[in-house]
């Protein structure tokens, strides 16, 4: 990767030289180039990629929508709304028993002034559920990626660094874990969790841990491959010659040089895991009622009345999943192109 950095530097100077404005405006071109670190060059190339910028914007807005807006929004994800039978006005607090008897659930209200996206089958506010559902999706994505990175980097790093029998044992472990069929395993895990009577609110944490324990293999493979090729490089031989401790070799030289690849994989995995979480929640394996998740919100489509007459209930969470995953893929792809020294963009 050090070679790559040199290549990056080379490209940047060529790029600078080819770009007329910077060529004429800057008084001292050479000096200007010196201050452009590899990270800055990656950022420049990333920003030039339109799709990547669009993706980043979507993700920032989505994070605000899911984590910021609920602080100011008046409704909660689990609050159930009622309608007065006679007047049709909405009731949130019952001031008398008579009124309580006179009320009906405000189910499947069309989008309107009080509820921007309407209400669902249970009489809950759709917009609030969309926000809290997004929280779950984003949180699951990040936590699973962190777990898989920690396990993958440690085990992949060990396998690549020590080689020999450590490598053989760890790679067999990687093969074993990647041979476990994912979906059927999740079904078993979920039925286990139900038997042990884990509450629907906590179920998702167990699901996250299981997902993390299953998905680290690709990270481990990537880190191992990178480290194996880095070990052959000349600067690593130089580092060996200075006699620094193995731990420092790993943390100071090897891991930072695999970082660009890791970031790309992590970003693309985020999108993939959100997709998987929503699929699990759709099947009822992930987040359970009454808590919202984009996946279990779409699952209300099984009701034919909702499918036909209330597209606001199932299309909006579906679109949210699509947009978020798409944005992660845009960003991941943009990062890959930006960190790839072969790309000249």
């Amino acid at each position, binding site marked *: 990767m050090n070679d790559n950095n040199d290549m990056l530097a080379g490209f940047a100077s060529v790029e600078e030289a080819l770009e007329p404005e910077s060529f004429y405006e800057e008084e001292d071109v050479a000096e200007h180039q010196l201050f452009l670190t590899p990270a800055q060059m990656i950022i420049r190339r990333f920003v030039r990629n339109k799709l990547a910028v669009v993706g980043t914007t979507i993700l920032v807005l989505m994070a605000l929508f899911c984590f910021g807006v609920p602080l100011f929004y008046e409704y909660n994800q689990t609050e159930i709304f009622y309608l007065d039978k006679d007047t049709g006005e909405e009731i949130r607090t019952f001031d008398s028993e008579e009124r309580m008897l006179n009320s009906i659930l405000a189910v499947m209200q069309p989008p309107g002034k009080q509820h921007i996206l309407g209400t669902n089958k249970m009489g809950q506010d759709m917009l609030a559920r969309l926000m809290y559902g997004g929280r779950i999706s984003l949180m699951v994505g990040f936590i699973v990626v962190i777990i898989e990175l920690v396990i993958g980097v440690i085990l992949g790093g060990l396998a690549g660094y020590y080689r020999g029998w450590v490598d053989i044992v760890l790679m067999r472990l990687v093969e074993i874990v990647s041979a476990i069929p994912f979906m059927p395993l999740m079904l*078993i895990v979920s039925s286990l969790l139900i038997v042990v009577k884990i509450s629907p609110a906590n179920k998702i944490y167990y699901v996250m841990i299981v997902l993390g324990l299953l998905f680290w293999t690709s990270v481990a493979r990537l880190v191992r491959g990178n480290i194996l090729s880095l070990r052959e490089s000349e600067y690593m031989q130089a580092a060996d010659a200075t006699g620094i401790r193995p731990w420092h070799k790993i943390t100071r030289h090897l891991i930072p040089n695999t970082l660009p690849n890791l970031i790309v994989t992590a970003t693309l995995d985020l999108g993939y895991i959100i997709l998987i979480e929503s699929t699990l929640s759709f099947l009822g394996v992930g987040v359970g009622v009454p808590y919202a998740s984009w996946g279990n919100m779409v*699952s209300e489509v099984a009701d034919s009345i909702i499918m036909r007459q209330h597209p606001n209930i199932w299309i909006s969470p579906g679109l949210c999943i699509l947009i978020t995953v798409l944005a992660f893929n845009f960003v991941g792809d943009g990062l890959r192109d930006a960190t790839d020294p072969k790309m000249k963009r």
Partner: protein
Amino acid sequence: MRQYITRRLLISIIVLIGVSMMLYALSRLIPADYVTLTTSTQAKITEEMKDHLRDLYGLNTSFLTGYWNWFKSAIRLDFGVSLTYARPVTEVIGSCMAVTFSIAFIALLFEVAIGLPLGILAARKRNTKTDYIITAFIFIGISLPSFFFAAMLKRLFGFYGLNLLPTSGLLNPRILYDGFTLEKLKDYAQHLIIPILVFVLTGCGSWLRFTRANMIESLESDYVRTARAKGIPERRVVYTHAFRNTLIPIVTLLGASLPSLFSGAIITEQLFGIPGIGSTAFKAYELSDVPFLMGFNVFLAFLTIVGFLISDILYAVVDPRVRLS
């Protein structure tokens, strides 16, 4: 070559034993075991009877003895009796495998038939409008949740929408077919259009992406430049010289997609009421049918390992360099 295959085979056996041990451990983790689950509705059963049943099922043994017994019967393809279907697990899997396999196989053919040519096209016309359209298609394919897409198609083409296509089951229940006729085939085809469309659109993206990326790499390599410099026609350069090298990683991907032919998209089968292995497994899940799920899991793990093995061997066949290491 023989040595290479033997080594890979041995490794596969080790991996298979590892996976089965992990899965067995998982089934032993269940606090309410198989016996408690099956007998919980019967009031008359006593603790002694339960213990006897546990002895029968080998649940009273230590982990290793239990695993060894389980392993011995698993080799004879005996995974016990499914709680939901009250038939041997192997029999249940066998009975619904054909449907799943045929649908997945047809879908895979379409995916490859669309993915490879379009991927090559995108790589050849890189950074043009064609490439951008195909890239957009890739992004949508890998980002679209299949259940959402399936629901949209169902709403659009089904009974509540345009009412063009049937959206449930495999055959029209109102018609009784005598033997296998063209009419029946047509009925099957009509029922399968939407499910296969879901498979193809959500699965095609990765094939396209893979082909495009690898093809771009081969087209930029030195030997392709040499071929062009020698004046070989562009068609030959692309499809013979460059594509051959792209084919190597594609072979690996094909091997890896073997288990997906049998795993059955649980969601798609569920949504469209297809009586395949995916919906069967989901039904088993809903009723906590652990023996079935375990058998199904082992079956898929076995297929995954066979898939790895096949792709490794094919890789060695097409790329002789691999055999040496």
